């Protein structure tokens, strides 16, 4: 079954507060939400905690709302994730700031998901990966968010516009600028 149809089915069932559908939604989106959160908070444990909170808050939202404002489950999940991260920053602003701004000096400070996964072995060279992750952390929050959504989690422009509450044109400009900024950072490193 195509991914789009599957997603629509899950979303339709969620409108009826189907618990099993929510478990299916977790299976389908847990990784991408975790990744999105991870690049926002920069720590594995924090990312895991926040991801759990995101799914619980989403379920809570579904219970109390008719989901009329959302056309896709993806946009709902990313919006809840964004708001949860903002709440997290509000609570631990100093800690969050330090993990993003000062923690980029050493690759070990960026807690890559699971050492056992041997991520570094799967990408071309360790240097490229390190540089990219570090430079990502150097990017403005807004740019980093756009790059993660567009190139890592592979959302389309329309979906990103829904998540960020921006027009499609603004999203295109934002992505262009974000990519340009990242390229400059990577080139500076070279």
């Amino acid at each position: 079954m195509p991914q789009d149809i599957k997603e629509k089915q899950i979303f339709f069932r969620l409108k009826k507060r189907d618990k099993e559908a929510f478990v299916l939604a977790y299976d389908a989106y847990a990784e991408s939400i975790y990744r999105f959160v991870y690049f926002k908070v920069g720590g594995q444990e924090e990312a895991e905690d926040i991801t759990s909170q995101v799914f619980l808050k989403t379920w809570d939202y579904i219970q109390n709302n008719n989901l009329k404002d959302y056309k896709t489950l993806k946009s709902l999940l990313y919006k809840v994730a964004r708001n949860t991260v903002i709440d997290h920053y509000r609570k631990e602003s100093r800690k969050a700031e330090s993990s993003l701004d000062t923690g980029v000096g050493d690759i070990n400070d960026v807690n890559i998901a699971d050492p056992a996964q041997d991520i570094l072995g799967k990408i071309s060279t360790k240097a490229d990966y390190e540089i990219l992750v570090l430079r990502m952390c150097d990017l403005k929050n807004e740019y980093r968010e756009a790059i993660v959504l567009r190139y890592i989690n592979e959302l389309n422009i329309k979906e990103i516009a829904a998540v960020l509450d921006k027009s499609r044109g603004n999203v295109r400009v934002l992505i262009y600028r974000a990519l340009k900024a990242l390229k400059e950072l990577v080139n500076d490193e070279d």
Partner: protein
Amino acid sequence: MRISECRTLLFYLYYMEDKELIVQLKKLKEIKPTAKWQEANRSILMNQIYSLGSHLGVRETVKTKLSLRWLANLPQPAVAVFLIVMVIMGGGVMSIKAAKDSIPGETLYIAKILNEKTQQVLTFNETKKAHLGLTFAHNRAKELKEVLEQTEASAERAEQLVINFRKELAIARERIARMNERVPKVVTPKPLNEVDANLTTDEIIGETSEEGQVFSANLGKEDNGIQVGEAVITEPKDEEIVPEEQEEVIEIPEPATTTLEEGEQDTEQASTTEPVVTEESAGAADAVEEAQALLETQDYDATLSKLEEADDLIEQTGVVKGEEEVAPEIGTSTDLIAEQGTTTTEVN
């Protein structure tokens, strides 16, 4: 190298650079939560979701069950039409109910009258029409009583109500008269050999006695020319009575030739086509007359009770009428046998 070629080359290099960067970025997809955490978190999430669901309060559960969210899934024009129909129907029913006890001068009185007229138009049964007429006359009398009880009673209103009452009563009287104009079936006795030969005379006699009861309602109405039973039944002749010991086949003569004389036959046919007036309908007509007389004397309570009495009589008339229509032809022929006194003889 031309400038345009230079530009293309630069664009290509820039684009390739972007491409490479995007490819590198896509590799960051490898960042995933651990499978262990994912599984554990899934279980926690499921537990929490299911426990949250079961701990919903009664209020929330009722709210969820009774909510009209299902309407959101229907096409909007269908929902709009459904709601409009519901409002119109609900409003109509409610206004009729509210108008039931209204009196002249009130806003809903017109709705009451319209409802009555509609009922009248939609009723086709004469008995029911007469019943409705009496009910409406009863309503007018009741309204008149209520209007006169009010301190600000308007003489005009009361007068109008008296006129209306008379009208309703006249209609009811007409209906009762129509009920009486009903033409009963012409009773033509059949030859006995057409009667089911398997029937014993005992069985036939049983039926005869019942039919006799049915027709008894019409007996004693000689003044109205109703002599259905008597016209058919004649005294048996001595030679026609078959003694039990002989056990012979009964030879039933043709009723037209043997039971009636030629002159009498015409009289009988004529008498059976005349209108039948039951005691109840006659009583109802009398009660209506009395009700009108009582209203003229301004005795409203007595008028109301008299109308109720007339109504009861009308209902009873309806019952009697139903019974009469069932009286079968076979009954008339068996009357003959009964009268002929062949009570124990078997019929072949």
